[in-house]
């Protein structure tokens, strides 16, 4: 990361890119890193805070061990995506955006993964599961 910041000099245009890298590396944006990024890019911390909270990709808190994402795009919605999300919430005993008590799963939703023909779609850590049903959710989670 250090390197990346140095390379980008004083340019805000590198910000989203850097945030992606930090997010990928730590699984979240550690708040203590903001000052560092701000200094190197020569922009204010509050500007960075504004940008990172604007986009769904970034989070200031660490997530669970695995991230479960349910597609809530239109195609998945008309095939029962909401039911899948509801069932996930019950199974994991959390709401969307939260992490299960044992720290194992974070539940998220997304507005379309571009596999609309095989919906409802669920991903776990980027692995795709097509044609999700209320019945096969348990077996998906059991893999982890």
């Amino acid at each position: 990361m250090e390197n990346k910041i140095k390379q980008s000099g004083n340019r805000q245009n590198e910000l989203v890119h850097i945030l992606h890298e930090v997010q990928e590396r730590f699984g979240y944006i550690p708040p203590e890193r903001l000052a560092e990024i701000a200094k190197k890019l020569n922009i204010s911390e509050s500007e960075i805070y504004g940008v990172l909270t604007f986009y769904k990709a970034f989070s200031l808190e660490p997530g669970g061990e695995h991230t479960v994402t349910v597609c809530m795009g239109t195609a998945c919605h008309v095939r029962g995506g909401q039911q899948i999300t509801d069932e996930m919430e019950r199974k994991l005993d959390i709401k969307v955006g939260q992490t299960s008590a044992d720290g194992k799963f974070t539940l998220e939703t997304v507005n379309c993964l571009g596999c609309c023909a095989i919906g409802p779609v669920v991903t776990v850590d980027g692995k795709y599961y097509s044609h999700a049903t209320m019945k096969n959710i348990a077996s998906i989670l059991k893999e982890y």
Partner: protein
Amino acid sequence: MKRISHPNQLNEWKEEIISNLPSYRKTVVISSGTCGQASGSLQIIDAFEQELEKKDLKNDIGIKITACHGFCEMEPNVIIQPAGIFYKQLKPENVPEIVEKTILQDEIIPSLLYEDPATKQKIEIQTEIPFYRRQKRFLTDNNFKIDPTLIEDYIANDGYQALAKVLFDMTSEDVIDEVIASGLRGRGGAGFPSGRKWKFCRDVRADVKYIICNADEGDPGAYMDRSLLEGNPHSVIEGMIIGAYAIGATEGYIYCRMEYPMAVKNVSIALEQARKYGFLGESILGSEFNFRIHIFKGAGAFVSGEETSLMASIEGRRAFPQQRPPFPAESGLWGKPTNINNVETWANIPMIINKGAEWYSEIGTRTSTGTKIFSLVGKINNTGLVEIPMGMTLREIIFDVGGGIKDNKKFKAVQTGGPSGGCIPADMLDLPIDYDTLAKAGSIMGSGGMIVMDEDTCMVDVAKYFLNFTQEESCGKCVPCRIGTRQLKEMLTKITEGHGEEGDIEKLQDLADAIKSSALCGLGQTAPNPVLTTLKYFQEEYEAHIKEKSCPALVCKELIVYFIEPDKCVGCLLCKQSCPVDAISGERKQVHVIDQALCIKCGACFDVCPKKLMAVSKYTGKKKEKIIKQSSQKKN
């Protein structure tokens, strides 16, 4: 191979690639885009590799791995060339049999063939399947032939020929005139004539100009841009370089949504190759033209697909839209003249240059030329991406190409244009599809999403779904969008929960009209469309929710009950075991009963009840009230 520094070298390279192609007896083409991989294509590839190795056929039989072929419902599928035999929904276990029978003995395996849902006929050859036969795959045909990670495959299929022609035989005016004459209109939503847009930008004097490819594809349910970028990234890149030459730009960006990791990957590989061989960078193909392209990964915000927001995002800022004018052609990225087009728009360019504007403008309708890729999804038999000439009717698209509605249900509506579009009812099925007819119907072409809805879809729920979407995605900069979409959503929620009142329909209409006329950007201006079109074509459904507190499509949770039919239930325990809240009672071989006070209406019992019994029903309105009353009486 080194940098190509002359068009002749490009042709020599092409010849060399073609003459070096291995002469396989047969080739197995395996589609392995995101849908393919999600459905298990990687295991199919492995199985073929192993089987060919085992049988010592590696020099005789080829494997070609491509991205999406569009028939995503049938993934993982393979085409065995040269005969063109299509096998669908494969499992690794099928592979040894395919090799043994079809590849070695030219014997067809009927159980792996596609069956036409209308005629029940099994079809052997891919191009004869109605889904493919009715299409005109000009843009997407190469998705069958190209391994997107190999630039050689693109070169062998006339790749970068259009660029060579433009750089050496055409002036920038010629290029713009050709694009204007083709009639090409932007595929990203509004359908603005692309050649004219280029001309605006060309005519602005500036030291630096930018080109952008909008690959944010925010419309949930549309994924043609993903398929093009994953399957044939060089066609988009070539289009951009040609555009840059015409406009006089030196730098370009591809803004790709982060939800498409494979598209980001394949584009990055393609850019790397294009740089290496001299299609990008300094002195392209030995000409005096220099151009660079960067890839920018989005960060998950729908509004960033709007052009001014997208530019703010590239600049590292929040994706807030800006008032236009000034238009990006004058003042765009970092205040410089910028031309932005959608992925599919760019992909059309090499074809227009290669085949000519005259050829192109013959396809489609007078005002909407060319083909358009639609994503046909929802309650339809043949889900997938279809490329068809503009002007085809909805009926042809949905019933001939799409194979009709799933499970023989009744067609109710098709939603086009995503959150900015609207729902088109059954009595408009004969509408020929182009930019103008869709706009007249109150919807838009948008990026080409077509979500097919059957009798089990509630139109008020659909409107609520979209308003929920736009309300969450509103960037909050302007009041009509921020507050207005929330109010619309709240009113719709109230109606779907059975608290609608007399006068709500008029209030919805007024509020929708107000937002439409006063929001800052396209997001807000079009957000009311799903409400307006459902009000226009499905008002009786709103009335049923409001006046009778009933949901005719049996969707809205608060307005329905689940009920186990005593004369159909055989007491198999399946529903009882699946109920997450233990609301179902009854022993094995005894009729089960739902305690309505405990039921959360998750629908699990309805889903698990065996199809041949169909013992779980849904009821709404008066019947629902009766069932709830009976249930509470029984308990007491």
